[in-house]
């Protein structure tokens, strides 16, 4: 626990110095990596700890994003209120999905399909709902001159770099605290063997709802900030299958069920993603980037099935 806390402090402290040496392009790239590390950390609470596979986390990114954006643009509500509301709404959605899954004994892969169905349902609804712009999208107005990022929660790359780094740090601290608490032990017990967990006094329904609510609420807040960063929202990009899948890659590559896995994974995956795009552009081969990216992720999953984080840790332990 103490070593973990020191690691979080070192990780965030070091990255907080980033804007001193990095240019705007790299800052926005890293902000995106932090965002996906944060989404991955939220998703990891459900899948990595409680063993609840969600392949529809786009639901919370989308609902969180649209909540913040619509409140801001249509109702003039500051994101300072919008973000917590988005979090609460998505926590409620997560709880409802977890309850439904438990109530109707929808387990494993079937639970995953339930999460996918919920996300797809929301996407299709939003695509046909004129109030949020339908497929045409929903746009935030341009920033006024003299914008104060801390008031509007909107700004340049440097602002979102810090904003997502702060969110990610909070997620790491929260995950670390959960890992070393009764809740963490109980979630892991459910993941390993639900019957044995229940026989050991674990209130499975309550724990599943708590994990899903926490995960959904965090993702909703992240989705809100994600929307503020992007400035535009489309149902397909905010809650489509693609983003639901994409947020799973970092925690899987970095190490499922570990505190730092999602952050390590995102910081590995994002440069690989960018680099392969550069290579593809220079070679002039359309689609080469996806091929390189896919192959590298495949290699990690094949040769480091526990993820980069645990594999490196094992290596270090072996040397000592």
């Amino acid at each position: 626990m103490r070593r973990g806390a020191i690691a979080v402090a070192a990780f965030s402290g070091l990255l907080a110095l980033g804007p001193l040496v990095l240019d705007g392009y790299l800052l926005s790239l890293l902000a995106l990596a932090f965002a996906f590390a944060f989404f991955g950390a939220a998703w990891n609470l459900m899948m990595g700890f409680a063993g609840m596979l969600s392949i529809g986390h786009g639901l919370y990114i989308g609902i969180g994003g649209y909540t913040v954006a619509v409140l801001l643009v249509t109702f003039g509500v500051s994101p300072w209120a919008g973000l917590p509301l988005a979090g609460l709404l998505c926590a409620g959605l997560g709880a409802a999905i977890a309850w439904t899954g438990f109530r109707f004994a929808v387990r494993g892969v079937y639970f995953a399909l339930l999460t996918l169905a919920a996300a797809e349902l929301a996407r299709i609804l939003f695509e046909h709902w004129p109030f949020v712009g339908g497929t045409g999208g929903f746009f935030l107005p341009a920033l006024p001159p003299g914008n104060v990022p801390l008031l509007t929660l909107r700004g340049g790359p440097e602002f979102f770099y810090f904003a997502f780094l702060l969110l990610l740090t909070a997620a790491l601290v929260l995950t670390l605290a959960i890992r070393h608490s009764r809740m963490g032990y109980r979630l892991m017990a459910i993941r390993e063997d639900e019957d044995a967990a229940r026989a050991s006094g674990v209130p499975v329904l309550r724990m599943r709802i708590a994990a899903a609510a926490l995960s959904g609420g965090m993702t909703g807040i992240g989705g809100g900030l994600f929307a503020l960063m992007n400035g535009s929202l489309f149902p397909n990009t905010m809650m489509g299958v693609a983003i639901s899948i994409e947020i799973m890659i970092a925690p899987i590559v970095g190490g499922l069920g570990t505190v730092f896995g999602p952050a390590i994974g995102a910081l590995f995956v994002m440069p690989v993603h960018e680099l392969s795009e550069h290579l593809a552009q220079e070679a002039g081969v359309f689609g080469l980037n996806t091929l390189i990216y896919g192959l590298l992720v495949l290699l990690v999953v094949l040769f480091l099935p526990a993820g980069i984080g645990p594999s490196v840790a094992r290596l270090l332990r072996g040397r000592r």
Partner: protein
Amino acid sequence: MSLLAVEALSRNFAGLRAVSEVSFCVEEGSITALIGPNGAGKTTCFNLIAGALKPSSGRVIFAGEDVTGLPPEALCLRGIGRTFQIVRPMPELTVLENAMVGAFARESRLAAAEAVAREALSRVGLLPKAGMPAAQLTLPDRKMLEVARALATRPRLLLLDEVMAGLRAGEAGAIVESLRAVNAAGVTILMIEHVMRVVMALARHIVVLHHGEKIADGTPEEVTRDPAVIRSYLGERGAA
């Protein structure tokens, strides 16, 4: 008064009567064994008592209260701890952390849970291996970890499902001693066991099931002399 009383307990699976009108009592402080050939309904009976299955009919009375049909987590809190026939400790966690899952049933703080878990581990002789990943344990140690996790929930009644299966004689001997000590410390034990040597060494009361029905109930001496028991174990010709 009995700590556990099972009254006319039955459970059907799609027409099959896995457990049929079974009644027996477990006295507080005793070690009672539930024996019978494969498919006799022993594990089903355990699952009905521990809440993993709901009975088709009949009642389970624990500590004077009707607990029939309560979920396993509620029964755990009332004082029924259990192990499973197929042991599956959490491989990535240490032995101590595995036992702590059980301790958290009654403790909410990490340090308190750790103390309870350590105590449970020491009772089954696993304390020296507390820091080991559970995946590295040998089979007998994994079985003992299963017992420690159940003990860490601080049960009044401990249900043990075949903890001796697959162990060598020397290994079983150590476990017998551990269980005797656990019982001496005040935990009532109801065990399903195939290894008759272990049953005879530990149990003062034996309940015999066959085809889902109780065919004998008594002291080891009474049960081993019972013609119905001899028939069920050795077949008709063996009894003749």
